[in-house]
C-alpha cells in the first residue's frame, strides 16, 4: 500500500475513533444512568441546643489562618459582635472521583425557636497531620454560608460566652457544645483542634448549599426558622469529621432553642 493510501486509512480510523468517543459521550448518561440521590438510613445527631451552647464571643471573627469574617462575603472582621457555637455533626461528606465511588453530602436539618437577629452557619472539617483544617470559602468565587433571620424579643446577655483569642500559631482548641457525638481519636469528648498552615489554607474544601444541584455552594438567606441545607465537598479531602459553626449577632433570649439533625445523603 502506498504512503498516501496509508495516511488516508489511518486518518479515517482516527476519525472513526473520535466519532465513537463522541457517541459514548452523548449516550453515556443513558447507558450508565446516574444513581439517584438517596438518604442513608439513620440520624447521625439529633440534639437541641440552648443559648448556653454559645461558648465564644462576643467577637467579630471566626477561626482561619488569619481571622475570617463571619458575615458571608466579608473578609476582614469589623466591629460586629457575634456569639459562636460549635457543634460536632458526627459526619463527613465524601468527595473524589464520581467514576469510581459514590459521593455523598451531609444534610443538616435545623429547627429554631426564639431567634433574634441573624444566625450564620459555617462549617469546618477536622484533619490530621499537617493538613490544614477544612472550611467553607469566606469571600470570592463560590463563597458560601447559610443565614437565618429571626425577630423574636431580644435577650440581654450570653453568660456562657467568652471571646476566643487569636492564636499566633494559627492553631485553636475549640470546645464543642454537644457531648453525645462520637469521640474523635486522641481528643477529649468536648474539644476539637483546628490548624491552619498558610493564608487561605483549607478554604473552599467544604461548601454549604441549599440545592444539591449546586454542590459548590451559595449564600442562602432565609427567614425560615425550620429548614435544611447540605454540607458538600468537591476537593480531594473533606476532613474526617465535620463541625458546624453557628454564629448569632446579638444576645438571645432564654427561650432560644436550636435543634440540629444530620443525615448522610448519597449523591
Amino acid at each position, binding site marked *: 500500500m502506498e*504512503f498516501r493510501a*496509508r*495516511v488516508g486509512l*489511518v*486518518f479515517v480510523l*482516527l476519525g472513526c*475513533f*473520535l466519532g465513537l*468517543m*463522541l*457517541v*459514548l*459521550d*452523548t449516550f453515556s448518561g443513558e447507558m450508565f444512568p446516574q444513581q439517584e440521590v438517596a438518604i442513608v438510613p439513620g440520624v447521625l445527631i439529633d440534639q437541641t441546643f440552648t443559648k448556653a451552647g454559645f461558648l465564644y464571643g462576643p467577637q467579630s471573627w471566626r477561626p482561619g489562618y488569619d481571622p475570617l469574617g463571619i458575615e458571608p462575603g466579608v473578609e476582614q472582621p469589623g466591629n460586629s459582635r457575634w456569639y459562636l457555637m460549635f457543634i460536632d455533626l458526627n459526619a463527613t461528606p465524601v468527595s*473524589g*472521583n*464520581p*467514576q*469510581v*465511588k459514590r459521593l455523598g453530602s451531609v444534610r443538616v436539618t435545623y429547627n429554631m425557636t426564639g431567634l433574634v437577629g441573624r444566625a450564620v452557619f459555617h462549617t469546618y472539617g477536622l484533619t490530621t497531620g499537617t493538613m490544614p483544617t477544612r472550611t467553607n470559602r469566606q469571600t470570592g468565587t463560590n463563597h458560601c454560608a447559610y443565614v437565618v433571620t429571626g425577630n423574636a424579643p431580644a435577650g440581654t446577655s450570653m453568660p456562657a460566652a467568652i471571646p476566643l483569642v487569636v492564636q499566633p500559631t494559627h492553631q485553636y482548641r475549640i470546645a464543642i457544645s454537644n457531648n453525645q457525638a462520637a469521640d474523635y481519636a486522641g481528643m477529649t469528648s468536648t474539644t476539637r483542634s483546628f490548624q491552619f498552615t498558610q493564608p487561605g489554607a483549607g478554604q473552599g474544601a467544604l461548601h454549604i448549599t441549599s440545592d444539591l444541584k449546586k454542590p459548590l455552594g451559595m449564600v442562602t438567606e432565609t427567614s425560615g426558622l425550620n429548614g435544611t441545607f447540605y454540607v458538600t465537598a468537591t476537593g*480531594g479531602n473533606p476532613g474526617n469529621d465535620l463541625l458546624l459553626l453557628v454564629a448569632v449577632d446579638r444576645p438571645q433570649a432564654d427561650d432560644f432553642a436550636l435543634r440540629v439533625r444530620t443525615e448522610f445523603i448519597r449523591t
Partner: protein
Amino acid sequence: MAVIKPYFSLYEIALLSLCAALIVALNIALAIPLKIPGHTGIYWVVPVIIGVGIVKKPGAGTYIGFISGILATLFGLNTLHIFNLLIYLSMGITIDILGFVFFYRLDHPAAGFITGAAGNLVKMIVNYTLQTFLGIPAGFILIGIGTASITHVIFGGIGGILAALVLSRLLKAGVITRDRS
C-alpha cells in the same frame, strides 16, 4: 569471535535519550495556562516524532517513551508517579507503530498530524484509565471524554505538524537523509 552489533548505535541512543529528556524539560519549563485537556501535546509529541523520524528504527519511540516515563516519575511531573511510565510508553509505542506504517516519512505534514494526534489521544486514553481506576479527579472527566478527545487530537496534531516541519527542514539542510544509511 563474532561481535554482536547493538540494535541502536551510540549516536542513536544519545539522540533518543536527549529527545526523552527534552520532553520532560519542556513539560517543566513550559506552563501554558490554557486549562484545556491535551494542550501539552502541542510540544511533547515533537521530540518523539523527531527522534523516530531521524532514527527510523522500530523501537525508537518506545525507547523515548520509556526513558521520558522514568524521568517524569523521578521528577514527579504529576500525581500518577510510577504510572507516568505507562502514559509515556503508550505514546512512544503508538508513534513507533505509526512511524513504521508511514515508512518513517514523518516529515510529511499529514503523517505528522496523524502521528501526533494519535500519540496524544493514546496518552489521554491511558491517562483516563489510570485516573479512573486510581480515583483521581481529572479535567477530562468533568468536560466529557468526547470533547477531551477532540482537543487531544487538535493539540497533538499541531505538535505533529511542527515536528514534521522541523524534520523537513533538517532533510532539506542535509542534516538527515530520507533513507536510513
